């Protein structure tokens, strides 16, 4: 009789060997990748932690006011005060640093890659299935090779966040550039634009709203992943929740959760406002109460959106 148990592909064994082989032979490569991430993360985290909370509150609220208007600024101020009062300020700063680092790297990788994809069908044919795989792979799965190759801690966490968060930015950049009106491209060429001029003068300005939409997605995915990477030892709000769960300390986990929700709402609204501002559609907030109500409702809705997008990413 045919016995399935006699026929087994030792794929798990192969994967383990392959990753070990990678880790053993390409250690310098991974250290090189890790180094700028670590430097950037440390720089941002140290500056955020060194900033007195009140100064951060004022500056950040000011930025919010400038970009997104009064409603979000008020919400942000309240949220930051609350984060201080429930005693998770340093963790919030660490999470913000983690996200900020990941976003910077995502932008540096994602936008040029997206541009390359938009310019060459061959590149896009290659990149697209890679992105498909990246986006359908559960984000937990990334943790294993990241730990094997980069170790544990906040820096490998940042690497994992980048891997999860970068695909939408590449997709949206590619899409945004490809969607630019053909007549505008022709106008550029007809007036003697070089490829570079065409990119900077015509394609990128037209694609910017779409790219910023992608950035919003990337920020939200980064937020979700910044929590998950607590499992490989990344610090921040995710760790608060994880520890709370580990000790069955529901209160502590809840506090971490609230922190995550507040940060997520602020980041989502802020990046959306950036995207909309480039459309030239700065929303003027109505009455304060209306603005707050919209914000809470919109924030709640977006929170659901966050989870959903996270779920898509997972």
């Amino acid at each position, binding site marked *: 009789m045919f016995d399935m148990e006699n026929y087994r592909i030792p794929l798990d064994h192969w994967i383990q060997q392959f990753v070990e082989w990678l880790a053993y032979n390409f250690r310098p490569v991974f250290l090189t990748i890790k180094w700028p991430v670590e430097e950037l993360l440390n720089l941002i985290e140290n500056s955020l932690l060194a900033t007195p909370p009140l100064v951060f509150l004022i500056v950040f609220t000011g930025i919010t006011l400038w970009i997104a208007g009064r409603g979000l600024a008020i919400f942000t101020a309240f949220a930051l005060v609350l984060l201080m009062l429930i005693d998770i300020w340093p963790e919030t700063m660490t999470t913000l640093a983690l996200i900020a680092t990941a976003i910077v790297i995502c932008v540096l990788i994602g936008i040029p890659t997206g541009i390359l994809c938009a310019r060459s069908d061959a590149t896009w044919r290659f990149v697209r299935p890679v992105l498909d795989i990246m986006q359908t792979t559960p984000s937990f799965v990334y943790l294993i090779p990241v730990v094997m190759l980069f170790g544990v801690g906040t820096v490998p966490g940042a690497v994992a966040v980048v891997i999860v968060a970068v695909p939408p930015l590449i997709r949206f950049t590619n899409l945004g550039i490809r969607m630019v009106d053909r*007549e505008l491209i*022709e106008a*550029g*060429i*007809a*007036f*003697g*634009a070089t490829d570079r001029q065409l990119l900077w003068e015509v394609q990128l300005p037209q694609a910017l709203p779409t790219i910023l939409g992608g950035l919003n997605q990337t920020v939200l995915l980064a937020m979700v992943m910044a929590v998950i990477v607590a499992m490989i030892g990344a610090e921040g709000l995710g760790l608060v929740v994880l520890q709370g769960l580990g000790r069955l300390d529901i209160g502590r986990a809840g506090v971490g959760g609230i922190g995550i929700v507040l940060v997520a709402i602020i980041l989502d609204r802020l990046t959306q406002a950036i995207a909309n501002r480039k459309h*030239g559609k700065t929303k003027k907030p109505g009455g304060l109460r209306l603005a707050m109500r919209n914000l809470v409702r919109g924030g709640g809705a977006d929170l659901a959106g966050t989870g959903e997008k996270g779920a898509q990413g997972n």
Partner: protein
Amino acid sequence: MLSEEPIGRLMNGDAQLTNRIEIRNLYKIFGNDPRAALKRIEGGASKNSLLADTGNVLGVDNVSLGVPKGSISVIMGLSGSGKSTLARCVNRILEPDAGEILLDGEDITNVDIDKMRDIRRRRISMVFQNFGLLPTKSVIENVAFGLKLRGLGLRERHQKAGEVLEVVGLSQWASHLPEALSGGMRQRVGLARALATEADVLIMDEAFSALDPLIRSEMQEELLRLQSSLHKTVLFITHDFQEALRLGTQIAIMSDGALIREGAPQDIVRDPQSDYVAAFTRNVDRARLFDAQSIMLEGDQDGFTLCPSGKVTGWRAEDGADLSDDFTTVAPETKLIDIARAARPPRPIAVVDDAGRFCGSITHAALLAGMSGASDARHSATREGVRADV
């Protein structure tokens, strides 16, 4: 021979010397293997058999066309006739697959990309159907676009752009975004952008087709006004025969990628030569198209007496009658509609050129025949016929 289509004469004679652009045997094929397709075409395959056998589409089929310096040459055709493809081949937004395009006598189909870019920046500019304005840039930045690509500094290019905006009458809109402007104003910006580079050749691809009829006619007026002072060489693409008649010093009609008729507007309407072209000319307002010299009896004094310098001194109804100065004079390029408005039958009409010299006479019957397009006015309305009719 003064009356014989002076414009057409200007076009056809000395073509080599006066053509700013000369298109010779141009082919453009859309498909996966243009070269093989071209071989088939050279072997005598038709457009349809090419499509059926290879899936390649013959976009431009052996077109030869001269665009005289300082003229508005209209390429007219229905959608899919290849007119826009042809226009895009001229500045090589699309690469032609065979044939030559001479710009001032120099073949530009083989020049390298840097040279071509320079030609696009300085010598050929373009106006687009949907304006092609950058929505994120202000009006003046849009007008200065070509100059910026050329590398001009901010102050210099804005000064130049400001001057051109003045010409199209949009100075006060300089700092607005295009979205704040109406369609007609946007196309003025598009036109200003094309003029700002001081390129001599303007390719206008369905430039007014997206505009409301009233605005369109306003823009046609504007183009003619600008052209009368700027004397650009304009290649104007349109699907609207009326527009072609109104703007064109010469018209080329395309169908299925091929050029099927070429000539001066009045010639084409008078003698379409094919049913396809006749379908366009049938409803043409002849009174506004044809001019005095197209229907006058050339040199026929018809009772007019001239002094030795050729000026009209008077008119006699019949031999022996008193010399009268009771007659109408019109210029050779006066349109029939205006002659009709000025005519006071039975007073005769003399065609007199700028210097006051007599060119010919127009009978009222010829005027009516010319306006109605009944038949060739000059031959149907003899002097005797007029006498009988009037």
